[in-house]
């Protein structure tokens, strides 16, 4: 693999980060709008090794925790787990398919929210149920849709094989 191929995901991830801090607030309810930052992490994990993905997840989570100090550390833990499991699962089980990747984005987002909700200990009872059964699935869905769009637009550029679409 060429050096340029290794870092070709950087512009895409950078663009998603910018979208997170610019466009996302304009996409309606904060609980439903797609999480571009997590999407950037998941796209990175598609091709990265589990260890690197976990490290990237930890950094992303730590930065997000800085923005939500009430659950400091929970985000880091959740993103670390999601990054690691995503990269590991991609390498072991998942095929290179848009639908599969969409499901990965959906599951990753919902799992991240589950870990944060449980690890932070802030959500309990009905609030936790609403979060996990209503808002998280909705956000996971929008994130998955956004991820599929990104892959359809830039899949070849990212050297992700999508021949099984």
């Amino acid at each position: 693999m060429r050096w340029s191929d290794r870092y070709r995901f950087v512009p895409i991830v950078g663009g998603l980060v910018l979208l997170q801090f610019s466009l996302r607030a304009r996409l309606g309810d904060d609980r439903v709008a797609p999480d571009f930052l997590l999407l950037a992490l998941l796209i990175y994990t598609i091709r990265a090794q589990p260890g690197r993905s976990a490290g990237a997840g930890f950094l992303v989570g730590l930065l997000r925790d800085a923005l939500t100090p009430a659950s400091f550390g929970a985000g880091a833990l959740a993103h670390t787990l999601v990054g690691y499991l995503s990269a590991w699962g991609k390498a072991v089980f998942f095929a290179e398919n848009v639908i599969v990747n969409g499901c990965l984005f959906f599951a990753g987002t919902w799992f991240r929210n589950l870990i944060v909700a449980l690890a932070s200990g802030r959500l309990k009872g009905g609030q936790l149920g609403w979060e996990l059964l209503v808002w998280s699935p909705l956000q996971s869905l929008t994130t998955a849709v956004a991820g599929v769009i990104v892959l359809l637009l830039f899949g070849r550029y990212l050297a992700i094989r999508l021949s099984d679409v």
Partner: protein
Amino acid sequence: MLLSIAAMSLPDRWRDPLAKGLRQTVLAPFLWLQQQTGLLAASLSSYDGVVAQRDSAALAATFVPELRAENTRLRGLLGLGARLGSGYVPAEVLHEALPTNPLTLIVSAGRRQGVKPLAAVVSPEGLVGIVSTVDAQTSVVVTWAHPEFRASAMAADGSVYGIVAPHGTEGPKVWLLELRGIPYRQSVALGTSILTSGLGGVFPRGIPLGSVVDSAAAEEGWERTYLVRPAVHPSAVSHVMILTGGRSGTAGDLRAVFERGEQGP
């Protein structure tokens, strides 16, 4: 994973400075971007509201001078009515949204109010026109802008007599009057007020027609022609008085009535 757990177990005195440091360094540009995006979105969303408010204010502001002018005009009419005493019918001008509206006007007084054909129609500023057709409740007024309008006129001091007619229907001076038939040996100073002369018996004497602003470019034969700026523009009139005669105290000369009006109350 361990680091994450360690981060979760950090005491507040370490956690808060760490989060603060991240926000002020790594996350600072992103937070700035988010803030600017929010400001931009707020600006865009409030822009329509601001524009709507501005338009409403501008619309209201456009009516203020009009209302003031109308108020002044109505006060003038009241003053004129008081000076006239009797022998007039007040009427409202029913403007139409047509380009020819200034040539003929419909007023809200007719036969039942005592209006008769060829009655002079005036405003506090001066002559508006003449009644041409009278219906039961309304009348048609031919204004001075109508091509067929003519009025016997004189200078305010009575030194010069002539005929006033519309200047024309084309060009930038379309809304001016002409004072025709002035003997070549006589001249009229600029700014001279032109009044109806009362000759011919159609218009009472002394109704202001306008003031001389220039001499006409083409002087024909042995007479001079002057351009007269009308005292009142038909489009700007909302209320008028239709003179019905029978007025006492002025012996058919209205100069004193309008002069007092020009001097103010």
